[in-house]
Structure formats: structure tokens, C-alpha cells
């Protein structure tokens, strides 16, 4: 079957799965997971160097940048100002002007601030960033972010790291229906069935971190979720049957031996 590839801000991706780089038990697990899932882009965070232990290798020593595009995030930022500052720092590294925009004041559920996110997105787009905002399941906010020039919208399926899956199914479906930019379902996906479901309703891609990093076998789970994303995408293209309230036999009704 011939699917059109995913295109974000003019860049083409064959893989519709983006992986995070946090929480792995080992860098070897992480790299093996990337390979098993055949991803093309991974998210990273920015943090201060610890000068009391500066010798520790950085994550860039493990990631083949020829193979995996880096998507820096603004994780840890609680306001638009903080997020803009971190975006500037990320760009100053000269590796990417893409930014996964996160403005998250709430420490318990890690839900994003719609106002701060829109403010930061507006400015960062103006400054030439490719902005991929992390948002709650709000279709109107998604349209507004699209209108200010964001490259995607990234609604959360359920709270980050919760593994609850597509809790926000209904409104994410509305976001997808109304979006003219790619919709990347982010946060809370716990298993291939969650990712497949997101893709079946027309999501363009999924972003997963905890479900892979903390799985019993991260590379195997990475492969599983990558297959789930593919399966869901193919089903979206194939056109699923409608749900019916009643049953309908798949064997013929006539000619039964009686």
C-alpha cells in the first residue's frame, strides 16, 4: 500500500512514531529501543551542566545524529517566558530550531497552560522556530495554535507517564477532524493498542516515552508500539467497518442443514 509520508514543517518522516529519551534504565536500552522502533526523531530536554560532576557523558554521546533528528523540549518550564528562554538556549546549540513547546505550571498532573502555551508559541513562531506545542484536549486551542503558525499540535492522550491511554479520545478526534497541521498524540500512551487507536482515528503520529523506557523490555516494547502505530495507520487508510449495535453473521444464512 502506498501511504503519503508524514511531513512536518516541510520535513518528511517515514516513521510516524517519535520517542522520548527520558527514564531509560540504560543508554544501551535507549539506543536499542530507537533501532527496534526505527524512529527518525527523538525528544531531548535541556538542563544545567552539573559542575560538581561534569565528566558524566551527555546523551549526545549515545545518539547518532545522522540517524535521529533531535526535538528539544521546554520540559520544566512553568511560564511562557521560561519556555521562550529555553527555546533560545536550545537553538543556540546549533542542532535544531525545532522546539517541543511545554508550558506546565501543574506539578501533579503535568497539564499544560493554554494561555502561556499560546503566548510562547506566537512569539517563537515569529522568531522562526518550528513550534510543536504540547496541549490538553482542547480543539479550539488547537485551532488557535494552528492559526499562529505552529507546525503541529500535540494533544495529550492522558497524563504524562500515566499509561492510561486514550482517555481524551473524543476531543482528540475532534482536534484531528478540524486540524490542517499534523496532529501528534502525546503523553499517556501505555501500549500498542493505545497508539493504534490514536492512528485509527486519523492522528498523524504518536510520541511515546515512559511506556517504552520503563517497560520490562524497552526495545521489545518499542518494536511493539512501532507496530501498533503502523497497524493503526494502515487501518485508517484501509477504512474500518462502522460499529453496529447488533450482530451480523459472517457465515451465510441460507443452506443451513436442518
Amino acid at each position, binding site marked *: 500500500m502506498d501511504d503519503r509520508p508524514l511531513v512536518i514543517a516541510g520535513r518528511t518522516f517515514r516513521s510516524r512514531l517519535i*520517542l*522520548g*529519551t*527520558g*527514564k*531509560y534504565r540504560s543508554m544501551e536500552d*535507549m539506543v536499542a529501543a530507537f533501532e527496534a522502533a526505527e524512529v527518525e526523531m527523538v*525528544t*531531548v*530536554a*535541556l*538542563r*544545567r*551542566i*552539573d*559542575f560538581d560532576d*561534569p*565528566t558524566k557523558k*551527555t*546523551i*549526545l554521546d549515545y545518539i547518532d545524529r545522522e540517524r535521529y533528528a*533531535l526535538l*528539544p*523540549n521546554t*520540559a*520544566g518550564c512553568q511560564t511562557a517566558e521560561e519556555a521562550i*528562554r529555553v527555546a*533560545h*538556549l*536550545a537553538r*543556540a*546549540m*546549533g*542542532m535544531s530550531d525545532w522546539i*517541543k513547546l*511545554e508550558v*506546565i505550571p501543574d506539578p501533579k498532573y*503535568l497539564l499544560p497552560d493554554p494561555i502561556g502555551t499560546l503566548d510562547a508559541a506566537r512569539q517563537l513562531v515569529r522568531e522562526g522556530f518550528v513550534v510543536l506545542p*504540547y496541549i490538553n484536549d482542547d480543539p479550539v486551542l488547537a485551532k488557535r495554535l494552528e492559526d499562529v503558525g505552529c507546525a503541529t499540535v500535540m494533544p495529550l492522550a492522558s497524563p*504524562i*507517564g500515566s499509561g492510561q491511554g486514550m482517555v481524551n479520545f473524543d476531543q482528540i478526534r475532534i482536534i484531528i477532524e478540524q486540524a490542517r497541521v499534523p496532529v501528534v498524540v*502525546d*503523553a499517556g500512551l501505555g501500549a500498542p493498542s493505545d497508539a493504534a487507536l490514536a492512528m485509527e482515528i486519523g492522528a498523524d503520529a504518536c*510520541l*511515546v*516515552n*515512559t511506556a517504552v*523506557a520503563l517497560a520490562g523490555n524497552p526495545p521489545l516494547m518499542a518494536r511493539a508500539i512501532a507496530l501498533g502505530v503502523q497497524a493503526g495507520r494502515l487501518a485508517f487508510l484501509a477504512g474500518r467497518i462502522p460499529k453496529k449495535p447488533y450482530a451480523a453473521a459472517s457465515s451465510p444464512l441460507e443452506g443451513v442443514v436442518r
Partner: protein
Amino acid sequence: MIRLTINGKQRELEAPTPLLTFLERHGINPHVIAVEYNGEILRRERFSEITLREGDRVEIVHMVGGGAA
């Protein structure tokens, strides 16, 4: 002996120190970091122009594993 703030911590250096020297001394590859010097984010080309002095506020960051939040 000078005092300055690096990554939010008070630090002391024997004397004003070129940024690149400071980085080299700590085994840090300048190509994988970003620096905010007294509130201004530096393009890498400018690292060589900077000398750390008394009272400076410096942020030196790198990439770490992260997914969301």
C-alpha cells in the same frame, strides 16, 4: 580570587578565566552546550570572546534525556 554565579550556584575562580578555558578545564565539549552570559544567550562563535569575571551570572546547559514535562 573572583566570585560568580554559574548555573545558579556561587563559584570561585582564582582569576578572570576565558570561558573556553573554563570549559576545557571541566572537560566540556563546547559544541554540545549553550551558554547564557549575564542574560544574553551566546552564539557559539562568541564563546572565544567571553571571559568569566567577578559577579558574572552564567548558565551553561546541555541536552539530557527527556520526553515530556
